[in-house]
């Protein structure tokens, strides 16, 4: 039996137009997994929020309210959230074919992301030296470093990926049709969105 007969037999069968391309669908599936991961981490943070050690004297141990500084975190957050805007500008420039402008906005996104990673590094350095907060200090330390660390790792992965795409695009190795910049921007918006939740929980509600 031949496939040709099967195909010609039913030439007018309706097809379903797919809303997303294959790569976009793959990324959305991946983001589902990421969403599940962060949900678990956030729930874990909530479970241990305010948990005391047996026999702990109040004020003796670092807690969210006596050790978390808002100043640096707000600067970091502004950088990260505005990078969502810059990557949006970058992509619309790319769609218009303004290659130079695109590279500038995209490069700015990478720098803002990098600021967030470095800023988090400074925050952690302060927490460890000034407040002696380590993962082993108490459950606040354990859950704080786990949640912020996992998010920061995602920012770092985004920065590295975007840098590679930026370099490839600067060398004009990617065709204008290449979906990579668009797809990495979806990932980036996701990471930013997660930060809004984490910031609200850790630095506002939980403090």
């Amino acid at each position, binding site marked *: *039996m031949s*496939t*040709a*007969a*099967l*195909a010609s*037999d*039913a*030439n007018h*069968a*309706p*097809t*379903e137009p*797919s809303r*997303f*391309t*294959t*790569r976009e*669908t*793959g990324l959305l*599936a*991946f983001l*589902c*997994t*990421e969403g*599940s*991961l962060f*949900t*678990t*981490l956030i729930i*874990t943070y909530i*479970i*241990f929020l305010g*948990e*005391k*050690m*047996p026999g702990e004297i109040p004020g003796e141990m670092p807690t969210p309210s006596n050790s978390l500084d808002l100043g640096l975190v707000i600067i970091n957050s502004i950088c990260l959230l505005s990078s969502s805007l810059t990557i949006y500008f970058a992509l619309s420039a790319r769609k218009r074919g303004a290659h130079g402008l695109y590279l500038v906005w995209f490069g700015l996104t990478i720098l803002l992301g990098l600021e967030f990673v470095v800023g988090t590094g400074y925050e952690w350095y302060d927490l460890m030296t000034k407040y002696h907060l*380590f*993962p*082993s200090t*108490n*459950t606040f*330390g*354990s*859950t704080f*470093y*786990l949640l912020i660390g*996992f998010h920061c790792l995602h920012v770092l992965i985004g920065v590295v990926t975007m840098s590679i795409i930026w370099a490839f695009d600067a060398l004009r190795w990617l065709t204008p049709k290449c979906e990579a910049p668009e797809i990495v921007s979806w990932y980036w918006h996701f990471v930013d969105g997660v930060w809004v939740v984490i910031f609200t929980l850790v630095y506002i509600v939980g403090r």
Partner: protein
Amino acid sequence: MASIDTPSTPKDSTTVPLITRLHGWVISVDHKRIGIMYLLMSFLFLILGGVQGLFIRMQLWGPNGTVVDADTYNQLFTMHGTTMIFFVLMPMLGGFANFVVPLMIGARDVAFPRLNAMGFWLSFFGGCVLYYSHLGAEGLYGAASAPDIGWFAYAPLTSPAFSRGNATDYWILGTTLTGVGAISLAVNMVATIFTMRAPGMRLTKMPLYVLLFLVDAILILLVFPPFAAAQFMLLLDRFLGAHFFDPQVGGSALLWQHLFWFFGHPEVYILALPAFAVISEVIPVFSRKVIFGYLSMAAATIAIGFISCGVWAHHMFTVGLSDTLDTFFAGATMLVAIPTGIKIFNWVATMYGGRLRLQTPMLYALGFLTLFLFGGLTGIMLASPPFDWQASDSAFLVGHFHYTLVGGILFAFLAGFYYWYPKMFGRMMSERLGIIQFAFTYIGFNALFIPMHIVGMLGMPRRIYTYTDPSWTIWNQISTIGAFMMAIGLLLFLYNFFSSLRHGKIAGDDPWDAWTLEWNTTSPPPCYNFKEIPTVRSRRPLWDLKHPDDPDWKHE
């Protein structure tokens, strides 16, 4: 897509040196080869896990057994459980997903072939990491050489104080790696099934097999990350002194159980849905009837996916949750029986009035039906907390879940092996050996696990390395004899599998007179799968082709 159409010249396998051919497999990104490699991986670990099971059974032959000591026994049941779940059944799932799904939807490969290859090699590497603990786990302490924490690794057994050396770390890393492999498989399946179906194959016109694997992939995406997160917390506990699971410093040992079983229960359904998928193909083809109640099957599948995410604490009745929680989780668990019952009803109704062909795939499918029904019924018993408090830590429970995991899932996969083997290799597996193997496996299986229910009711706990009560002896001896019968059955299967590669009957393209697209290409399929991407109009495109006078799309 004319450029892909030119067939590569088939090389005579005798002229190409073996090392080149093996290298070709290692670097392959072809979904069919990766699928077959997944299946071969599952065979390797099936032998390892099977031998561990046999040692457990020999130790329990009589009271005060001395085949292994208590520590070794703990390692044996830990490795047996971990191996069978993560490195036997999961790779079988990966193999059947990879080989069959793209062919069935008329695609030339999966969405991301290189990611697919990475997923396979990560899974395999995970297995190697787990087994490396036998060599490298002594660490500085000279402690246990294999993980001895049970496959669910309850805290505080895994804390640095109780689990010295590095065996537990190899367990964590091995299972996490294979989890990442499973996630890349799932991403691939979702993208492939959503965007690469043949023209005309709407979501509602997919064969049930494809639909079940889609729901399966979504479940994998949702429940593996919490497990990975829990594993990561455990690593922090063990290496950085964090306190997630350490109640003495404000942590919670119960949190591990919640996170583990939030993964662990749906995992059972992640393994069961592919089994249902195989059965939903085999039973219609060998009953010569269209599947009964396609839509209710689809709805039941999605319902199972949803409900299975809300029942995890039925594994935790014995820790003493509140009555409210117990009631909720008992109720939710019993709900699962409804969609599962619908499925069993539909399979039976498909057979009713059909012209049954009792060839090997159908034999195993019938075996699946009886055994899975039995396992499901004891599952409903265990869903009731008062009964569970009595039976949860007894051999009864061991018997129950082996009926679902082995009697249900492994038998369905065996049906799948006999069914798709001709498509994979172009030859049939021996029918005669298949029937002998069925007799050994089926009788051996029941002899192995029915006595466990009885001896569990008599009070024999699970996970004990020996016992003194002589009244348990006879049941344990029947179990052990059954275990060896089953081992013979599975060895016969492996022999059949490998010897049929050379000596099997030439199969032809469509040996079972089946209805889905994979039978519309050559056996084995060329690397590009289809010369021309077929257009489909119904759920049984090959039926339409074979019966142009009465095509399915007029009735659907």
